[in-house]
């Protein structure tokens, strides 16, 4: 893998740090008029998702990370792996539970997800921002409560639990924002 000098640092560049692939979020050059230049860098660790700050001496080189981002559609789960497919090449990519993480509860068949692959293996799965899922369990709500005040927990077909307005019933399909885990609206069938 290529090495990158600090002068090539920019948002989105993938580098290795502490044995983990990382993505540069922000890079600020600090240069005293008569002194050592350095780079204050914010990096996101791609496996843990943690954002850390790190200062590099300008002119230093760091190892690049063999990381690619792919848009793949979710196929199925065989109990051990979650299988995704490239819609153009039809190549299938299995992701393990560590890579899928919390995204598991938002995976809907055919939905296109963003996968990050390091040295060819998935390390993270990001679901679409919005998914549509059926409610499999919730308390019967009060008829006529259309204002949506209060709310109640509802279990979705993937096992995810979200708060929904009282008027939403079992068997209905709802739209959820996966970034916040919040109910957005009912979906007309």
């Amino acid at each position: 893998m290529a090495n990158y000098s600090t002068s090539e640092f920019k948002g989105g560049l993938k580098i290795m740090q502490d044995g983990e692939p990382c993505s540069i979020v922000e890079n600020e050059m600090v240069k005293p008029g008569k002194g050592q230049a350095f780079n204050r860098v914010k990096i996101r660790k791609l496996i843990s998702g943690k954002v850390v700050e790190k200062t590099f001496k300008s002119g230093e080189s760091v190892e690049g990370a063999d990381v690619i981002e792919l848009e793949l559609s979710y196929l199925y789960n065989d109990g051990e792996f979650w299988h995704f497919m490239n819609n153009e090449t039809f190549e299938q990519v299995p992701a393990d539970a560590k890579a899928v993480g919390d995204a598991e509860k938002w995976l809907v068949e055919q939905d296109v997800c963003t996968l990050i692959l390091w040295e060819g293996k998935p390390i993270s799965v990001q679901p679409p921002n919005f998914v549509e899922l059926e409610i499999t369990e919730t308390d019967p709500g009060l008829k006529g409560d259309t204002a949506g005040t209060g709310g109640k927990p509802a279990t979705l077909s993937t096992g995810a639990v979200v708060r929904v307005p009282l008027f939403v019933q079992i068997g209905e399909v709802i739209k959820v924002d996966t970034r916040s885990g919040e109910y957005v609206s009912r979906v007309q069938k």
Partner: protein
Amino acid sequence: MSWRPDASWSMLQQRADLFKSVRQFFENRGVTEVDTHLLSQYGVTDVHLKNLSTEFSQPLPSGTNTLYLQTSPEFAMKRLVAAYQQDIYQLSHVVRDDEVGRYHNPEFTLLEWYRIGFDDNALINEVSQLLSETCGAPPIVERSYQQCFLETLKLDPLTPDGIEGIRQHLESVPALTDWMQKETDASTILQVAFSECIEPTFTKNVPQCVTRFPVEQAALARVDESDPRVAKRFEVYYQGVELANGYHELTDAVEQTRRFQDDNRHRVTNKQPQMAADKRLISALESGLPDCAGVALGFDRLLMIKSGAKHISEVLPFTTNNA
């Protein structure tokens, strides 16, 4: 293709006003405006500055084709001071490779001036007056480099033990651990500590002057006779920005030659190309530079402070990215 300027028209009017008030300031004090060359047969040896260069189509009488774009007009202005013994100032474009960011554009404007018979204290006082007259700043507050470290970190930057303590302190900062574990250069340790630990403690709305830098960071300042561990160099910070760097000027040609050689030794250690020392500057010092003090102040940064701009692109007609 975007062709629009970076700065707004009202900012360009403020820029013009600031040029006018700077020129008025020096006219009132009998200091003469000069404009020296941008292209020189010599660059700088300074380890932390990188010249851009260009090739002239035919060799000059000295045999070289390479011309260096000046990182500051310092050497040329000192030759004028040596030759004519006059107070001079200059507002000039300068160019520095590898410098781009919120407060940096590769090409920018420096305000540089030299005052005969002034020492660093007299010149700090004049910088304070300039900031007051052009930007309405309150009087400058002075502290020595050593005081800054003692007050903030309780560690002495002028002793080996103190520097090791500062290195250990930096090593305990997670963002700096990897670098500081292996850093052995005392000046680098102090410069990083200064940027990361000292500068953030400065009161923003009062200009801060740091004086008496460690002699290893003397640059072109003379050594303080009363304490040879420090040099008569000062830096001014205002509104969180490094604004000016000045010296009670080194006039000793032998000492200057030795510092250029030291720079080149550092360059070899850092695997940087060596730079030929400007022989015409050395000759001027040999012939006699009068006792004087000089300072360079970032004009674009001064305008940023005056106008409240958050990025240097807001105060430049066209940044290099848009040139």
